[in-house]
């Protein structure tokens, strides 16, 4: 029940928690809400914090639950795409016979800080352009590293839906990265 603790959390970990949340929720507003809910929950649960984990790890654990709550709420509001729009986008990548419509270009290997910074921006932009549910599933899997089984359960979607969404998201992300200058210039 120490007032100082909670305010140290905000000062010390607020930005970090916000960035983690922002990356998964793709919205400043939702990320701010998640940080607030996390700190309030942490305050209420303070007595249970044993100090085994660092405060940041402990808070991040709480944040993960809050993020999943947020995503679950959003998913309830958005119909899971059965096929239609997403499938059309996939169609455009392949020929009728199932071969690639265009050859894939190899990726560059960013080394300098500037190149890496550029890459982070492109990654964020591409992820932001994913359709809502696809973005959530993709983030939970590739950014948060959750298992698909866990994601299906949390979001209440079938494994098949989950795989379809991940497949589309990955096809889209790959193409988006290639189109936004991540492909090695001039390479075959």
């Amino acid at each position, binding site marked *: 029940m120490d007032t100082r603790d909670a305010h140290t959390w905000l000062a010390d970990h607020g930005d970090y928690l916000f960035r*983690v949340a922002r990356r998964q929720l793709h919205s400043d507003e939702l990320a701010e809400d998640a940080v607030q809910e996390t700190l309030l929950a942490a305050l209420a649960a303070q007595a249970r914090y044993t100090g085994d984990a660092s405060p940041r790890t402990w808070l991040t654990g709480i944040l993960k639950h809050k993020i999943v709550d947020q995503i679950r709420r959003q998913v309830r509001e958005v119909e899971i795409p059965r096929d239609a729009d997403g499938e059309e986008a996939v169609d455009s990548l392949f020929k009728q016979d199932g071969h690639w419509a265009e050859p894939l270009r190899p990726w560059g290997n960013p080394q300098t800080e500037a190149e890496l910074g550029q890459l982070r921006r492109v990654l964020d932009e591409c992820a932001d352009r994913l359709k809502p549910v696809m973005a959530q599933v993709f983030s939970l899997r590739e950014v948060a590293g959750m298992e698909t089984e866990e994601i299906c359960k949390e979001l209440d979607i079938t494994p098949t839906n989950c795989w379809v969404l991940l497949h589309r998201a990955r096809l889209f992300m790959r193409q988006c990265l290639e189109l936004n200058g991540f492909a090695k210039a001039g390479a075959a």
Partner: protein
Amino acid sequence: MKWMPTCRETTALASRAMDERLPLSSRMALRLHLAICENCARFNRQLQEMRHLFREETAADDAAAGLAPEARRRIASELHKKLGS
């Protein structure tokens, strides 16, 4: 019997293989296709690379912006309220 998946089907298998262990028959089909198809082999490598980039990027928490001052104030005041101070 269809033993060789198309590129399109292969990308679905490659994607799913990122998430769980495929049944043996699917694993064989995937491996066979990847062995002879340059584009799909590249796709498969890029999926791994993408995962690496995302996980690495999440760990590197420098570049991106933090909480806006306005949001920080709001959260601080919510915490205050909760503490009854």
